[in-house]
């Protein structure tokens, strides 16, 4: 193993489990959580697939020292990480199951290095959250500002300012975060930047270049990625399949994990 191997696997807290002989399946979590959000699906997949879990830098147990603001100022930086993980593990014919913002990370990665990928499963994808001329993404700039306010209120506002003081550990705010949310741990400063990158990016023109067989999994009532956006993604990605889950909300991998698993299995069968 080279030093680079250790760095990439450590940086993204990569976990490999499941069937060692199985087809590799990389599960990519979205904004706001960590690899924990696959917890309810993994038990139903690990007999068949070689499961690779990872945390985006800034989330979960990733190495926060690896956060380079320039690199992660666009989804390309996150796509680089995905490709580096696949390179380190030397995986091909990979099924990338990507939730929310990671769907576009997956599209960028698959377009750059299609030879690594066998299938894309995009759960609640959106290439552009902001409305634009002739395009309804679902949000306005004011909505995004509102989210940043909500983030600040919950992480950078009162509690985040006070918690490190209370803990007497202002130099290491991540310890305080661990107390306030041991689930889906995210670094507040990085979360704020990630939110901007996520919700202000425009990846519409990357969709038509996808050549990997793609399944678009759309929730029937999803505020973050509405039905029209899912249809747009489906229309733009040549030859893609779209399936609608009868599920409310944006996180079917938690609210209806069995349906998501079934759709993935049907698509790959």
């Amino acid at each position, binding site marked *: 193993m080279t030093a680079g191997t250790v760095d990439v696997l450590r940086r993204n807290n990569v976990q490999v489990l499941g069937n060692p002989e199985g087809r590799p399946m990389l599960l990519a979590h979205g904004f706001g959580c960590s690899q924990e959000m696959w917890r309810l699906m993994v038990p139903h997949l690990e007999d068949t697939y070689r499961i690779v879990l990872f945390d985006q830098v800034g989330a979960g147990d990733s190495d926060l020292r690896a956060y380079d603001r320039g690199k992660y100022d*666009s989804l390309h930086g996150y796509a680089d990480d995905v490709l580096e993980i696949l390179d380190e593990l030397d995986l091909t014919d990979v099924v990338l199951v990507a939730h929310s913002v990671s769907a576009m990370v997956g599209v960028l990665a698959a377009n750059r290095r299609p030879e690594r990928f066998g299938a894309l499963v995009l759960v609640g994808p959106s290439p552009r959250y902001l409305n634009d001329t002739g395009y309804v993404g679902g949000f306005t700039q004011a909505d995004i500002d509102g989210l940043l306010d909500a983030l600040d209120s919950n992480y950078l506002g009162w509690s985040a300012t006070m918690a490190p003081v209370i803990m007497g550990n202002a130099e290491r705010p991540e310890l305080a975060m661990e107390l306030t949310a041991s689930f889906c741990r995210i670094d507040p400063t990085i979360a704020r930047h990630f939110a901007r990158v996520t919700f202000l990016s425009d990846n519409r023109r990357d969709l038509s270049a996808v050549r990997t067989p793609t399944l678009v999994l759309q929730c029937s009532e999803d*505020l*973050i990625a509405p039905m029209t956006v899912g249809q747009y993604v489906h229309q733009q990605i040549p030859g893609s399949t779209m399936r609608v889950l009868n599920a409310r909300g944006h996180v079917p991998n938690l609210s209806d994990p069995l349906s998501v698993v079934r759709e993935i299995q049907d698509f790959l069968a």
Partner: protein
Amino acid sequence: MTTPAARSDGERPAAREDSFEELYATAPCGLLSTTSDGVVVTVNDTLLRWIGVARDDVLGQQFTDLLDSGSQLFYETRYQPVLQLKGEVREVALALRRPGRDPLAVLVNSDLVTDATGSPVHVRTAVFDSTARKGYERELLLAQRAAESSEARVRVLQDASSAFGSSSTDRALSRALVSSARDAFAAAAAAVLLADDSDMLTVSAGSHPLDQSVPLGAARPETDAIRRSEVLTFPTLDDLRAAYPEFGERLATTRYEAMTVAPLINEGHPLGVLVAFFGRRRTFDDREVELHEALARQAVQVFGRLRLQNELVQLALHDQLTGLANRTLLHEQLDRVLVTAQRNLRAMALIFLDLDGFKAVNDNLGHATGDTVLRTLSTRMEAAVRRSDIVGRYGGDEFVIICEDTDEDAARRVAERIRAVVSESVEVAAGYAISASVGVALYSAVLGTAVTAERMFHLADDAMYESKRSGKDRVTVVRAT
């Protein structure tokens, strides 16, 4: 003073709740329950009163429909996953919509209620009015953001100041500027391009995704920033395509979508540009433009200082009359060339020459004419040698040429050319015969011997005297052994 008389339980019904239903309905916090996928099934009067909505308009709705849009995003991406994974969330700050009024700031606790098999059944939520706290917190938050923003700016400029100050070359300074810019603007790539004598901007540090060099005359963002003497920002590819169609199309083939250019101009003299590239569309506000300007200003000051230092170094190491290397620089360079030759097992040559007939020019035509002759001959010698040869004035009418990586044949050719160009007539000294007595000392590391710079000068000097003794205007070659 009287003490209230003790009463039996039955005598104080006002101290008891009439019913749990009433407690639920009018509790001093909002209460509601939803199905596991968020449909509201129960809500209390307190919450309805706070948000000014009728019960029938809430029951059967999604809980997210009660939230303002920023809170919806937060709810879906953060609140929901944590609730599902952990079974509870505590003190989450959200904002509830209120028809005709500003949203109500609340803190929310939720529990996920499961059945005997662990499957989620309900979500119970308590809502606390946090308007007062929110108002105070909002001020804190705005103050904190402003402080962070100006602190970040001060930090960037301070870091830049110390990194720039310790740079001793244009390249090191360019590297420091690239690093500061990437840090300050979260740029995916940045580069410093410096103008050279041939009117080109060339990358000095960092990476430019398209070009190593840009002609100053080209219609490009880099050159326009210099011409207009202001920071140019291009938030999207479309902005670039509109202004520079060809450049915009080429950039569209990379992963970059936005760009800024800051000109580096020192007292009206263009030094170059700082360019930054971004992997997504960006907005650049006044603060960011000002930060570009401040970084560029700091860098320009240091570039100016480095240039001044270079000029001083140039003065200290060069002959003032001819501009050739002076004795100090010649010794430095000879040491370096010898070390390189010994390390790489290569040959080198040192050429020493003394002018013949120059004293007569000086005595009869004056020192000013003598100086003109020396300048003319210097220019001729520089033109006659190869690009890698170093020509210097050793003193008076003595000159030295250091020839790196040069064998005997090549050294003889250079010496012969020098001898030839010196003997051509000089206009201001027409009628005076000037020639050169030339000595060449050869060194070859292949022989395995080491030699000092002093020894080489000594050998070349001796060879030059040999040329003088045997009739002048000729070349004598000796070998260092």
